[in-house]
């Protein structure tokens, strides 16, 4: 499903460039549940942004399904994002001024789904996640766990093939975190590919593969040979 070849991401600084990702080679198959771990500043979220096509400034090759993402322009990448990918964020990132129902409706409206179809898709997800009773509430009226439940529901409402979750339980109580991870596991069992970033070993245990990032390099990937540790910045 995903192939990264020599993907690098750097930011210009006064004297040169600072690399946040170095020579990333990664293969993810459809149906995988991959966990990305590593210390702060290792490049985990940047990698997730690249996978989710939110970031344009990288170099290298990226194949997603049958598409050579590195050859696509910004607009086509955004189209792929809309069609295949759902996001879950650590801080939930629900839109404060919208109700639960509207938050679930928003991504569909961006996909030009007709109003009637949107209504049935949202209703189905509300039912599936058992949050029908909360559909008219605003995010501020929900607990953190409930907000993240809506966040996950929003990620899956468009039936994505890939869910990218950036520390999805980082702000949650352990019991709420467990609930969310069970949900991910269930989605993965139903065929959705999941890539999560987490610091939690317990959460990582829900996945079938854990990649370690360190200073922008892949330090450990069970499917590949580890790359020797190198300095992350060049002048």
């Amino acid at each position: 499903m995903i192939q990264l070849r020599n993907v690098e991401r750097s930011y210009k600084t006064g004297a040169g460039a600072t690399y946040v990702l170095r020579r990333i080679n990664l293969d993810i198959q459809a149906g995988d549940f991959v966990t990305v771990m590593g210390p702060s500043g290792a490049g985990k979220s940047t990698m997730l942004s690249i996978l989710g096509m939110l970031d344009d400034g990288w170099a290298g090759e990226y194949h997603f399904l049958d598409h050579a993402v590195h050859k696509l322009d910004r607009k086509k990448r955004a189209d792929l994002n809309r069609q295949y990918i759902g996001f879950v964020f650590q801080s939930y990132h629900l839109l404060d001024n919208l109700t639960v129902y509207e938050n679930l409706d928003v991504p569909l409206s961006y996909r030009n789904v007709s109003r009637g179809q949107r209504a049935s898709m949202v209703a189905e997800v509300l039912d599936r996640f058992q949050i029908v009773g909360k559909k008219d509430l605003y995010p501020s009226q929900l607990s953190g766990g409930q907000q993240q439940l809506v966040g996950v529901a929003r990620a899956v409402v468009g039936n994505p093939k890939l869910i990218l979750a950036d520390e999805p339980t980082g702000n949650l109580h352990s019991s709420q975190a467990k609930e969310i991870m069970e949900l991910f596991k269930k989605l993965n069992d139903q065929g959705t590919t999941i890539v999560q970033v987490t610091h939690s070993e317990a959460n990582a245990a829900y996945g079938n593969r854990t990649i370690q990032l360190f200073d922008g390099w892949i330090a450990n990937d069970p499917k590949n040979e580890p790359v020797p540790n190198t300095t992350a910045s060049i002048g």
Partner: protein
Amino acid sequence: MIDALLQDLRYAVRMVRNNPGFSLIVAMTLALGIGANTAIFTLLDQILLRSLPVRDPQQLVQLQFVGSDSGRTSSRGGSPGDYFSYPMYRDLRDRSTVFNGVLATYATQVGVQWHNQPDLATAELVSGNYFETLGVHPAMGRLFVQSDDVVQQAKPVAVLSFNYWQRRFGGDPGILNQTVVINAHPFTVIGIAPKNFHSIVVEDAPDVFATMMMKAEITPGWNDLDNRRSRWLNIFARLKPGVSRNQGEAEINNLWHSIRTDELKDMKVHSATFREKFVEKSRVNLLDGARGFSPLRDVLRTPLLIVMGMVGLVMLIACANVAGLLSVRAVGRMKEISVRYALGARRSRILQQLLIEGLLLGLAGGAVGVMLSPYISALLVQRMASGSPNNLPFSVSPDLRILAFSFVLSLVVSILFSLAPAFHFWRPDLTPALKQQTTTAAGGTMRFRRASVGIQIGLSLLLLFGAGLFARTLYNLRTLDAGFATDHLLTFGIDPKLAGYQPEQIPALYQRLLTTLGALPGVRMAAATNDPLLANNNESTNVTVSGYNAKEDEDMNVEWSIVTPSFFSTLEIPLVAGRGIGEQDGPDAAKVVVINESMARHFFGDPQRAIGQSLGSGAGNGVKMALQIVGVVSDAKHETLRNEVPRTVFVPLLQSKEAGFIPLQFYARTSQAPESTATTIRAALQRIDSGLVPDTMRSMEAQIDDSLNTERMIALLAASFGVLAALLAAVGLYGVLAYSTAQRTREIGIRIALGASRTAVVRLVLSEVAMLVGLSIAVAVPLALSLSRLLRSQLFGVSNNDPWTLAAITGLVAAMALLAAWIPMRRAAGVDPMVALRYE
């Protein structure tokens, strides 16, 4: 698409509702700008742009001739070529073939008596085909037809204006076929004009319409219907369908040359040059008549365009201000918009959402602005109409055109200020935004806010510079020496003919009025003239001066004022040589005149040499030099304070042939506040004859104030807009400095920890202010100097690039900037390094 629009509209409404304070500030800022623009445009539209409410106004043309003429012009403004004599009108009406009707009009004042109650009313003397040619239909009864206007004094019929019918007759339909007394003559009311039609003269709102053939009754003592050399009519015509103005002009000029050739035959004396200018070089132009005739349009065009330009600047400032506010809010919305992008929103959809939010605020501001605008318009109309707004037929309520203007304006400014946040969200860096690591738009926002504040400072300097120039103009005019004492002077008009007096009774009545006035308690002296001062009036004629050989093309036109004895002493116009006009200058005494200093110096070189010389009224060899100059008085401003003093001849009333025909303007020099004697004077007039209605009794100071209405209006508006702009800019500047100082807290803390003094920190903030304000001023000053050229025609006694005004305004803007920077500077100087560094 529609679904997405509705969805974004729903969210936008919610955004507005959830941020009521912010929305209110934005809407009110826009309301001020849109309200002011709507108000000014309401007037500009009616005065400069709007067509008459008549059938096919685009077919109407106004006739205007160019070329020499001789005789007398009774003008009420505009060009002398706008006025024709009645015989000329008759020729043009009966002999032209390109028109479907040629109409004539003349405005005057009449006395209307109804149930023994006298009242002064405005009247329009019109040709019988006036309403028919315009395609106007009556509200009730019937309007004039050509057969009403065939024989002089044969059909005394009148049409009332809708407003006058409502005001004076309570809208009573029974007024039809009733008799009202106009200038002591009975007239039968035959109809009521439609509500929306006032006159073909845009700023006129006549109460009564009468036909040309009744001129002797409407303008007693002055008929001139058969006098070819007395020009007093404005002529309009309706082109036949399919005839262009050029075709019309070609035909009418053939006719015009034939008319002029015939007229020349009746003139006894003329030179070859005169003949050439009178016939060959004379022509009639057909001007666009769709908007009617409007001397006021010429007077107000530049001031209105200037004011429109100023409110345009205010709108830009409001727009920049709102853009600044929205860009600040954009920082807070970075997460929301990044999430929307992450959820798959296209850029166009984000832009659509921002535009809808902007439009909602813009339209809310527009709606409040439209509600405010009638109050602003009413204030302006009141200013323009010397405190009696009923005299001007301008509506202050916005109609469909104005609503459309406001809607488009709201739309345009909404799009403009909505682009500010759109600019921040065009290519956001999503990764850090979604990680909530930073407000990624901060750098761009600060640049944008600085630019927005810089624009506001620059624009407010432009407005304040304009305001400064107009304020100095007003001051210069207000403090100008008019050449006579303007204080303790009460003035009013009396027209005995409107109360039914016959010409032979009038001189004696005037004498009695002056004696009575002079004897009233509180009145020191009284006098009168047919040619009031500082009232936009002129009574000019050509003269021949003994011993002076005029060149062929020399302008021998002088002001010809008929005055009563004691005129100069009452007005306190100093005598320069000889004597003034006294009681001894009666009808049987030797004919004498007094002239002013300008005239004496022009014709005689020295006032003393003028004494004993003679002059005559008219031009050519046949003029009798019957008038001896017995005195020279110093110059006094005449038509307006701005105009040059004209060469003037003062003629004793009792020696004038017109003594029994002319209305007079009376002046009473009072020993106390002039207004306090008004009641005494009214009572005295009542005692003499209750039918004598004084016209506009007021002090000379009040009259001067009224004559400066336009100047005061512009100065007031410019100052208001300038102050408003400066306040908006100051608040914007404060916002930028407060924000940037807060952002630099850590830097300031480190500097202080490293030993920087408080003064050095203040200097740090000051340098930012100096940079921003200095750059704005550097751009705005050349722009102000360049734009101020457009104001030149409206200034008096001050140059359009006056360095003192510019320096003062620049200083004011700099002071305002320092004031705005005061709190951020104090805050910066008060940073505690320990707290600042620990915080970071």
